[in-house]
């Protein structure tokens, strides 16, 4: 249903409806939400032997659309019939609304009215989650854990590229220029306190794997070693290195 009414009119209608049903024992119980996100879905519960449910929405300011969507019909925990409905407000701006829901069943009517607050989407459910902020640029540690017995020629090229320059620059030249540190360690290294956490963390990864760590020890990346030096360089740059 569509409505564009003042909040005073909405309150009056709700009062009339409530008065009309005051003498009858309501078999339908309606609850309405108080807060929904912008563009979100308001779930309205009706309990009891509900025969019909009608929504009326009274925006206080801008117009909005209310669409009735039965999304669940069944029994509640007490084996009572239940209809769960979704009231979709069609792009109303954040603000205050008044929502009245009327349900009738077996000659009884229940009406529920509530102030409905539509919050901005960012406050409740971000419509577009913000990307993770880029790490602050700085010096990095590239820590490679491998099983050298299983090293492939491709992996050897990536590992050598960490220190061996190539014509026109390449990973090693970039690392030197930025002052990044490199550690390439076999997982069979004897236990050392500084190394143990990395070896342990590498335990659930396929080897070889790489850690990109800032100077404070924040682990910015922990993943299998990229297949090429260019991919490893791109990963490093994406982590502020």
């Amino acid at each position, binding site marked *: 249903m569509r409505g564009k009414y003042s909040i005073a009119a909405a309150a009056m209608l709700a009062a009339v409806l409530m008065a009309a049903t005051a003498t009858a024992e309501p078999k339908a119980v309606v609850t309405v939400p108080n807060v929904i996100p912008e563009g979100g879905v308001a779930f309205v519960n009706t309990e009891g032997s509900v025969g019909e449910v009608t929504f009326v929405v009274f925006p206080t300011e801008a117009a909005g659309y209310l669409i009735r969507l039965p999304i669940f019909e069944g029994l509640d925990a007490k084996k009572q019939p239940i209809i769960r409905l979704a009231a979709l407000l069609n792009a109303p701006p954040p603000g205050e609304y008044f929502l009245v829901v009327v349900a009738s069943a077996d000659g009884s009517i229940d009406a529920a009215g509530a102030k409905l607050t539509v919050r901005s989407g960012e406050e409740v459910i971000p419509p577009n989650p913000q990307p993770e902020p880029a790490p602050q640029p700085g010096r990095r540690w590239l820590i490679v854990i491998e099983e*050298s017995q299983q090293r492939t020629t491709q992996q050897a090229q990536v590992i050598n590229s960490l220190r061996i320059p190539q014509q026109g620059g390449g990973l090693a030249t970039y690392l030197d220029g930025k002052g990044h540190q490199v*550690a390439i*360690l076999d997982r069979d290294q004897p236990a050392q306190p500084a190394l143990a956490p990395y070896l342990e963390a590498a335990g659930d990864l396929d080897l070889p794997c790489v850690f990109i760590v800032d100077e404070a020890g924040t682990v910015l990346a922990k993943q299998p070693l990229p297949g090429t030096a260019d991919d490893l360089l791109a990963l490093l740059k994406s982590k502020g290195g």
Partner: protein
Amino acid sequence: MAEIPLDVRAVPPGCGTGCLPRNTKLGDRWPILEDQLTEIPEADWPELIEQQRSMEWLVWEVLNQKSTNSCTANATAQGIETICNRQAKQQIPLSQASIYKMINGGRDAGSSIDDALEQIATDGALPADTAENKARFAHTFPRLDWRASLPDGWRETAGLFKGLEWFDIGGARGLVTAVLLGHPVVTGRDGHALCYLAVVRLPDGSFALVYVNSWGQWGVAGGSMSYGFGRDSLARVDRGIRSYGGWALRSANLAGLLDLPAPQN
């Protein structure tokens, strides 16, 4: 590649050799590469050579045994220095004499490579007694004076430079596989130990293995061996491996050199 027969007169004046035949059997101490890995077929070599980042670039100094017969200790230390440069990004000069002292029986009469490997795997090598090393490490040792006394507690520092894991290599093709996988190889030929680092393809289509020789200089000496870097045919390397053995350095214990930050998450 043309074969050059051994000519001891080709060893330049002031340059020692000193590699004795291996005294263990293939696979006695370390796993055999050819058993553990699939040899890279020759058909794949040209493409891999093209893509290869040659480990020659990791050599930041050519060790110099001078007139001593400590070539096996030099070739082994060269391998550790190379790995240290790549794995820990540190260029730390090592004392060849700290290895040689333990394996030469108290005489400058040469040694076998397998003894040098055992020493570097068991005790490690001490840093050379440079000013920078003395400031950093508790123990150092002269580069060549193997008669010097080892300082008390030296094993604590030497343990920072251990060659932990090696492959025993059965032949030149296994050596090619090793260097293409980034493992330096220590082997000998003509009574002299060398550290092999790369494989190249020659204009005639044949292949050669690149070594670094512990004669202390960059460049070519002439004769059958070069100062600095040189090249050997696969056939020559095959013969050398049969006599002296050949071992690929898989991993070194360098973690104690690294000041890794403790991970925070």
